[in-house]
């Protein structure tokens, strides 16, 4: 799977970090970073939860 962040929509709520800290990371300025754009399949459930919990619908998963 590949994670796509629409940075135009992202508003750094950080809900994705709460759902899947293995993949999403907020820095000291609360800017969002994706630690791994192609996470292991075992993280799929958590990544998909992060997608659903984004208030700005800024995240998607392809594949």
């Amino acid at each position: 799977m590949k994670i796509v962040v629409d940075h135009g929509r992202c508003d750094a709520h950080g809900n994705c970090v709460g759902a899947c800290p293995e993949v999403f990371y907020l820095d000291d300025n609360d800017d969002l970073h994706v630690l791994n754009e192609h996470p292991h399949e075992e993280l799929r459930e958590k990544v998909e939860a992060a997608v659903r919990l984004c208030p700005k619908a800024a995240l998607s998963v392809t594949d």
Partner: protein
Amino acid sequence: MDRVIVVGASLAGVTACDALRRNGFEGELMLIGSETSLPYDRPPLSKALLAGKQSAADCLLRPTEWYEQMDITMLLGTRATALDLATRAIELEGGRRIRFERLVIATGAQPRALPNATVNGVHTLRTLEDSCGLMARLGAGVRVAVVGGGFIGVEVAATAWELGCDVTLIESLPSPLSRTLGDTIGQLCAGLHREHGVDVRCNVTVRDVIRNGTVNAIRLDDDSLIPVDLVVVGIGVQPCTSWLETSGLELRDGVVCDSYCRTAAPGVVAAGDIARWRHPNLGLVRFEHWENAILQGEAAAAAVLSPGASVEYAPVPYVWSDQYDRRIQVVGHPAPRDEVVIADGEVERGQFLAFYVRTGRVTAAVAFNRARLIHAIRPLLSKPLLLNKALEALGREDESRPFIAQVTGDSP
């Protein structure tokens, strides 16, 4: 035939539908909603949509095709009027009855009205239609009174200010947001609005709305008279349970559920603003939070799909509010009387994390523009958390450092 009916085309209802299909439910799935619009997202209604920065179409939770792809039968613009558990049927406006095997109740809540104030120019804000109607009236120089300093009220006040309105915010308690967040944080909120030029009036209530065809002033119980063009009332909501009154389900400011979101009736669950459920750590609670609508919609779907479900629904509550350039995020379940200690950042700069503390334990955390920290603390709140352990988790091991100070609640 196996039919699941979801009543309430809300975030909780749509999420329940999504979760049912995702978890393999292949029977008939029906979504009933009283509004004619496709289900939409509420946070923009007091913020981006109201400010004209987001379109109504962009507020829809899912596109039309999604409901077709998920094979969901949509009954929009249709109000459920009764639930008959003996025959396991929903009664709709007009008398039509639809039977179900399993039921998800997600009819949400509706705004409380100001007594004696059903007059042109007095608005409440709950629906997409409400927001669009209000937006059409806001603009530069419009005099707006916002009655109620809860999350909706403070957000509307901020948005109206951004649109150039002349705003008065009226709260019956000593400060806005204090009913949920206490007076310490409430005073910061009041200060934030005053800095922007909003006239914040606390410890007062509205005596009456004075009108001449439409609203032209409101009188407060301290006898002050505020000339206004429109009034927005945000004094809380009540769960939409009237259609359930004859059902026999236990209703107590919401539909009472166990820790799995199940009512006492087999195969009947509730989720979202309407559900008062037994949280394993917090007791019988009901939340009106966006994220709770999603997580509880999922939990209720799981419980109705697998009646022997083994996972209790025990989230650490989370809510956020955007006002001006501040994002306030709260995790946990604060009590207004909990002590507030600053754990990180500077209050004066509007960027900090604070803990709510009761008998040495952290009950909740609030952040102003500190998203990273609030999400770092949240998982720790799923178990009892001592203040020193919470500080340690932030890398602040010495509790006596000067940045831990109690905020004074002095009113300007």
